[in-house]
C-alpha cells in the first residue's frame, strides 16, 4: 500500500515572456503515493483557488503519456526522475518524505515562457511545416500493399515515429538543440520508400528551419536520448547527419 508523503514544492512563476520569474514555495502535506504528479499540482491549485490566489499554470492534456503536452522540468530532469515516462506518468511514490521538489519550465530560447511553466513550442510545428511530410494528394494514393516494406524497416520507422514532440530533448540539451526531434521525423520518412523521393529536400529544409528558429548545435552529449520519454535513439541523429551531408554533397 502506498504511504502519504509531505514535501516542499518550489514552482516557477512567471507572468509573461518578458517578465522576471521567481520561485514560489509551498509545503505539501500528506499526499498519497498513488497520486500522479499532475494530480498533486491539481491539489495545489485547488488550495490556491480556495485561498483566492492564482493557480499555477502548466500544460497538460491527455494525462496518459501520448499527447506530449505536459512539460515540467522536475529536480533537474525534463519530465522528472523517471525515465521513459512523461510528467503525467510520474507518480508521487517516486519521491520521499521531506524532499524538496523543484519545478521549472523548459528553458530554451526557442521555447519562450507564456505563463509559469507553460511554454510556447510552436517552433516544432514550424519545423514540421518546413518538410516533415510526404507530398501526397488526398485520395490519390496507390494500394497500400503495392510497395512491400520489410518488417525491420517498418518497425524501425515506427520507433522513430513514436516521438511525441514534447520538447524534452531541447529542454535537456545544454545546447538547446532540437536534433533528436528533427532527426526522428526525418528518420521515419527516410526509412520508408514513401518518404524517399523528398528525403534530401526534407532533411535540408527541416535542418535549416531549425537553425533559423534559434535552436542550438548538437554536440552529441546524449542528454536528449537519456531524457526522451519515448526513448528515441541518437542513431536517428546520425541518420539525419548522413541524409543532410549526402544531400549537400549532391547539390
Amino acid at each position: 500500500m502506498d504511504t502519504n508523503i509531505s514535501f516542499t514544492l518550489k514552482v516557477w512563476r512567471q507572468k509573461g515572456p518578458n517578465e522576471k520569474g521567481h520561485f514560489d514555495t509551498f509545503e505539501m502535506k500528506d499526499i498519497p503515493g498513488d497520486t500522479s504528479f499532475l494530480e498533486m499540482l491539481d491539489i495545489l491549485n485547488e488550495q490556491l483557488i480556495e485561498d483566492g490566489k492564482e493557480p499555477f499554470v502548466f500544460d497538460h492534456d491527455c494525462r496518459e503519456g501520448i499527447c506530449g503536452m505536459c512539460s515540467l522540468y522536475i529536480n533537474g530532469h525534463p519530465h522528472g526522475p523517471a525515465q521513459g515516462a512523461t510528467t503525467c506518468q510520474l507518480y508521487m511514490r517516486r519521491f520521499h518524505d521531506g524532499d524538496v521538489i523543484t519545478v521549472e519550465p523548459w528553458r530554451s530560447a526557442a521555447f519562450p515562457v507564456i505563463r509559469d511553466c507553460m511554454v510556447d513550442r510552436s517552433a516544432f510545428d514550424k519545423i514540421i511545416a518546413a518538410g516533415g511530410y510526404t507530398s501526397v494528394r488526398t485520395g490519390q494514393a496507390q494500394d497500400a500493399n503495392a510497395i512491400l516494406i520489410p518488417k525491420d524497416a517498418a518497425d524501425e520507422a515506427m520507433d522513430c515515429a513514436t516521438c511525441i514532440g514534447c520538447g524534452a530533448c531541447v529542454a535537456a540539451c545544454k545546447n538547446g538543440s532540437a536534433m533528436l526531434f528533427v532527426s526522428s521525423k526525418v528518420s521515419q520518412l527516410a526509412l520508408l520508400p514513401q518518404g524517399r523521393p523528398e528525403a534530401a529536400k526534407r532533411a535540408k529544409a527541416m535542418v535549416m528551419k531549425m537553425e533559423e528558429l534559434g535552436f542550438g548545435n548538437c554536440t552529441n552529449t546524449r542528454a536528449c536520448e537519456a531524457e526522451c520519454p519515448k526513448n528515441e535513439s541518437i542513431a536517428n541523429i546520425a541518420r539525419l547527419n548522413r541524409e543532410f551531408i549526402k544531400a549537400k554533397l549532391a547539390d
Partner: protein
Amino acid sequence: MANQIDSRIPEGPLAEKWTNYKAHQKLVNPANKRKLDIIVVGTGLAGASAAASLGEMGFHVINFCIQDSPRRAHSIAAQGGINAAKNYQNDGDSVYRLFYDTIKGGDYRAREANVYRLAEVSANIIDQCVAQGVPFAREYGGMLANRSFGGVQVCRTFYAKGQTGQQLLLGAYSSLMKEVNNGTVELHTRTEVEDIVVIDGRCRGVIAKNLVTGKLERYGAHAVCLATGGYGNTYFLSTNAMGCNCTAAVQAYRKGAYFANPCFVQIHPTCIPVHGDKQSKLTLMSESLRNDGRIWVPKNLEDAKKLQRGEIKGRDIPEEDRDYYLERRYPAFGNLVPRDVASRAAKERTDAGYGVNNTGLAVFLDFSEAFQRLGRKRVDERYGNLFDMYQEITDVDPHENPMMIFPAIHYTMGGLWVDYELQTSIKGLFALGECNFSDHGANRLGASALMQGLSDGYFVIPYTMQNYLSDQIQVPHIDTKAPEFDAAEKAVQAEIDRIYNIKGDESVDHIHKKLYHIMWDYVGMARNEAGLKKALAMLKDIRKEFNEHVRIPGDKEGLNVELDKAIHLRDFITMGELIAYDALERKESCGGHFREESQTEEGEAKRDDENFMYVACWQYQGSDEVAPTLLKEPLDYQYIKVQVRNYKK
C-alpha cells in the same frame, strides 16, 4: 425544414449511392476555390484531415485548435487500430460485411447509407495513410499486418503498435502542416471557438477566444466545420483528455443545430479503477487484455468484504470461490463480449457488493491462467508494456496479483445531427468525426472511431463541401463587422463577464465533480425513469450552484485557465441535461444505453424496435432552463435484416 428531418440520402441502390452522389454533385472550379473561406474547428483526425484536404484543393482554410499544437488533439490517444474492408487476409471480408458489422454492432440505430459509405471509403484511408508514411505493422514478407477486434469474424484491423491513433494523427497533422506551409491553411493554436455566427440562416463564421491573450476574435467564412470531438468529459472522470470539451457543439445546438442521440455514451470496460477523490482522469487499458485475461469477483460476499478492507488479496481466494461471471453468463463469447455488455455485467456484480478494492468499484482481470497455459514469457510478449503501465500507476505487479479494472466513460456516439452530406440542421455548418452523431448507432465497435474520423475528413467533406459551396461563389469574403458578429461577440463577452463576476466560493473542479456523481450515478451505465428525473432536478441545482458559487481567480483579461474551464463546465451541465432528457425519452435498452425497465428476464438489454427505431434529434428552445423538444428521424432498414444481438450462444 422546421419539424421535418430530411437526411438527404441520395437515390439508388445502397452500393451505388455514394458513387452516384459524386457523379452528380456540383463542383467549384479552381479559380473560385481560393475565393472561398472555410473554417475548420479542431485538429483531430477529422479536423486535420479535412483542413488539409480542403486546403490542398485550393480553398482558403482557417483552422483552430485549443492545444499548443495540432498534433496534440485527443485522437492521438487511440490505441487499438483502424478497421478497413481491405480483405488483405483473404478471410472473406468485404465492404458489405464491414457495413453489416457496424450496423449490427451499433444495435440497429445508425443510418444505412452513411455506414455503407463509411465502409466503402475505409480501404482508401489505409492507402492514404501508408502513402503519408504511417508505419503500420507489417509481416515479414513486407505486407501489412492485421489483428482482430471484438464483435467481428474477420481480421481487418490495421495497427501501429499500441499507438495507431497517434500515428494516424501525425500523418494527418503532417499533411495539415504541409498546407500551412503552402499558405492555404491559416492555423490558430491555443484558440477556442466560443460561438458560431449565423447570418440569414447560414453559418458564416465563429467567435474565437485566444487562450493566451484572452481576447475575442472574429473569423468569417463561407462554411464552418466543427470537428471538436465528443462530450465524454461531462462525466468529469473519463478517458478523454483534460481539455476535451463540448462548448462549440453545445453553442451550435443553442444556435439551432439539432443534437442527436445524446444518451448513446460508450463505457469502456477495462479502465484502471478510480483510486481517490483527487483523481483527474481515467486511464484506459487496451481491450486486447480481455483476449487472455479472465474477469472475476469472489463468489462469497465475505471474501469481497475482506478484499475491500484490504485484509486479503486476490491471489488468496481459491479457484472454487471465484465467480467468472462473464463466462458464466455468456458462455459463447465469455470474456470477449462487446464493451457495453462487459461494462454492465461489472456494474451488476459491484452493485451487489462484490467489488474487490477499497471503494468496492472494481473487478479482477486475472492472467494467472494465461501464465500457466502460455508461460510468463509469452504472455509478457503480448501484454508486457501494459503490465508495466499498470504497475507504474497502481504499484501492483500483475504477475503477483490480479489486475483490477472498472468501466469508464470513453466515447460518445451521439453528437450534432448531420445529414448525408455531414451538414447540420444549420445551413453551412458541418460536423465531422466524434462531434457528429456519427455512424456508430447506439454502440461503437472497436477500431471504428479512427475510421470514421478520417473518412469524414479525407473522403466525405471534400466532396460534400463543394456541393454546398457551388452556389456561394458569388458571395464575397464575409464581413466580420456585420451586426450578427457584433451581437455574437457581445453575447460571448457578456457570458464571460457574468461567469467571472460570480466571484463565489467554489472552484470549477469542485462543481464539476458534483456533476460527475449525478451523471455517473443516475445517467451512467444503467438508467431508470425515477433516477433520470431525479438527475434532471439535481442538474438544475448544479446549474444554480454554478451560477451563484463558482469562483474564478486571476484576471479576466489574459490567460486564465480557470475561466476557460468554467465556460466548459457551463456547457457540460447543459450537455448533462440533454443526455438525461434523451435517456428518459428512450424507454428501451439499446447499445450503450440501458434502461432498467427494458430488460429480459435474464437481465439482458431489450431493444424496442417498434417504438424507438429512430434518431432522436433535440432542438433547443431558447434557454438552458427550458426542456428541449424532440424531433424524430425514422430509421428504415432496407438492406439489413434487423436482429436481436445475442452473445449467449
